[in-house]
């Protein structure tokens, strides 16, 4: 458990917004080297690798998690030195107001400001993202140009740490948690070869996964993701989707995939038989790499196993250690089951 958390801490602090997953990719390439062969980085930037099993693959199983996180991209440097930006991936404007970020490879610190409430006619609304800006302390376009360039990315600067009763808080838990689990699973034994895909650009349209699935040609896929837990105050019980601490999340349908019915049922059965904490996702909401994978080539039988995560797509997200472990175990057991049958 502790290695899983240590890896997640490292991954959470790396900067890897969609399309610029470099730092995460480098870390993963280093970590998987002792365990995998046929490692390649494809044209979309995905890391594809084969973990050798006792025998070659009879049916191809691919495990997938995405390396990218949501963030911001600098669109323009204004005359007064402030930086205009656009979101990369879906970001609610309310979660970035009044927060700090670091910009570009030199990690220039900046603040996303807002007009003081005293001077605002509307004290309950935040501006649109296209009227927000990052303030790095400069006073002119010329000065800013010494430090940043349009196209630089700005990433949240959340510190990863334990939280409350067995919880973890950090940025990019969606989906560095999935990546950390894949790094752990890679160390385990499989009866047959298994393929691992660390994908890119999930947050901007599951683009890496589309390419990775085409290349690896899996028959089966297990996607390790994070999914929105709305088990917070002010939300009706029926709308909570899933709960932090209540186990690995297994879904029947989301906005881009209807999951393989037999795999779905099998996953629930395995969880029950192996006593792995598990819950059903109680909403049709969200989407993930399964959307691209299940419709690759002639079709792929796909299942997603997710971590319940509060405050997804926001600087401070929260997951439970116990769920982290449950997703790891359940995905391993499902993989074994797929390879066996």
């Amino acid at each position, binding site marked *: 458990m502790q290695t899983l958390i240590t890896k997640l801490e490292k991954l959470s602090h790396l900067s890897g917004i969609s399309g610029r997953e470099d730092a995460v990719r480098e870390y993963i390439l280093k970590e998987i080297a002792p365990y995998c062969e046929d490692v390649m980085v494809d044209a979309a930037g995905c890391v594809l690798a084969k973990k050798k099993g006792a025998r070659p693959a009879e049916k191809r199983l691919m495990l997938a998690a995405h390396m990218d996180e949501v963030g911001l991209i600098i669109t323009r440097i204004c005359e007064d030195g402030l930086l205009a930006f656009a979101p990369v991936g879906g970001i609610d404007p309310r979660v970035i107001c009044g927060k700090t970020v670091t910009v570009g490879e030199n990690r220039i610190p900046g603040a996303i400001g807002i007009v003081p409430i005293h001077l605002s006619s509307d004290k*309950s609304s935040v501006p649109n993202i296209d009227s927000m800006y990052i303030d790095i302390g400069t006073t002119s376009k010329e000065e800013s140009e010494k430090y940043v360039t349009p196209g630089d990315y700005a990433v949240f600067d959340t510190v990863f740490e334990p939280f409350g009763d067995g919880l973890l808080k950090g940025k990019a838990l969606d989906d560095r948690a999935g990546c950390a689990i894949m790094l752990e699973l890679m160390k385990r034994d499989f009866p047959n070869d298994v393929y691992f895909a660390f994908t890119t650009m999930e947050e901007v349209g599951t683009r890496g996964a589309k390419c990775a699935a085409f290349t690896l040609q899996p028959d089966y896929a297990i996607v390790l993701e994070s999914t929105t837990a709305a088990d917070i105050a002010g939300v009706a019980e029926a709308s909570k989707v899933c709960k932090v601490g209540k186990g690995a999340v297994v879904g029947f349908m989301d906005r881009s995939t209807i999951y393989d019915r037999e795999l779905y049922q099998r996953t629930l059965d395995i969880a029950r038989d192996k006593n792995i904490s598990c819950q059903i996702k109680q909403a049709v909401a969200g989407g993930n790499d399964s959307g691209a994978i299940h419709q690759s080539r002639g079709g792929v039988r796909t299942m997603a196993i997710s971590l319940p995560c509060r405050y997804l797509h926001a600087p401070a997200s929260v997951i439970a250690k116990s769920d982290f472990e449950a997703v790891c175990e359940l995905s391993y057991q499902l993989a074994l089951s797929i390879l066996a049958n």
Partner: protein
Amino acid sequence: MAVYEIINGLAQAIGPAGAEGGAATLAAQLLGDFVPVRRDALGNVIAEFGKKDAKEHILLDAHIDEIGMIVTYIDDDGFLHISGCGGADRRTMIDAEVYVHGESKLPGVICCMPPHLTDPANRSKVPDWDGIYIDIGYNAEKARELVPLGSRVIVRSKPIKLIGGKICAKSLDNRAGAAALIRVVELLHGEIDKLPCRVSVLLSTREEVGGQGATTAAFALAPTQAVAVDVSFARQPGAPSGSCGVMSSGPMIGYSPILDLRVTEHLRSLCKEKSIPWQNEIMGGGTGTNADKISVSRGGVRTGLVSIPQRNMHTAVEIVDPEDVENTAQLLAAFVRSGGANIDN
């Protein structure tokens, strides 16, 4: 001490209105290096020095309290319900990281609206305080044990240095002002015996909830003239430029119907004399600072106002230029050395 260091230290201290504890203690310690300091019934930090029997008694005030939140209720799932304490900006609270000061300091996260429950057309509205909750990651039983009702909540924000030496942190309103006054005392302490007037430096409590600290201290100290130091609006996108000063252009000297003309004029002429950059802040009535309270203390006190230009007021990412704070300190030290404005009739 370099003014940046004073601001940096004070900005990290905890001191919401009515519970100024940590911040007041630190400020008292910093002042106490130079002059004797005492506290009063409402927690004000007061330093008195200078010529005891002088005719002029100058009061310099900066409020030491910051805005924050307070726990009103813990629900059956362990989430904390809160109210604002001072005008905290709810628009910057969603997914904010906070510390809850209960039995111990607990990290927390302010809940966000779940995306599947948010209508894309309504993604700009922030709920009222009764729709904002704090997640500390505990069940109800444990949360109730760890967090007494009335516990304070402060946004978690480590000061960061921006380009040009500017500081970005919580509570620069008004730790920047308090830092200016600590620097004033530091600048004057070698000449305390030679000052022509009596001086009281007041780091007042509760400004954000009604100014009760300054009201009571001004009554007790009974100065003949006063200058309040606070922060005010620096130009930033969306802010009407008529209401704003410009960051790094020096202290904003207040000019308003309720501020004393002679004190105001004296502040301006000192700037010109000592080549201290300054700018106008012209207002139509009340200033929204302790100056409003001090100026009508007892039979009236001739009061001026000096403000440090600041962006993003009442958020965790307030920004000031330490140069403006230093220039404010230089101005007020000059004010004291000159014995204040000539207010004889």
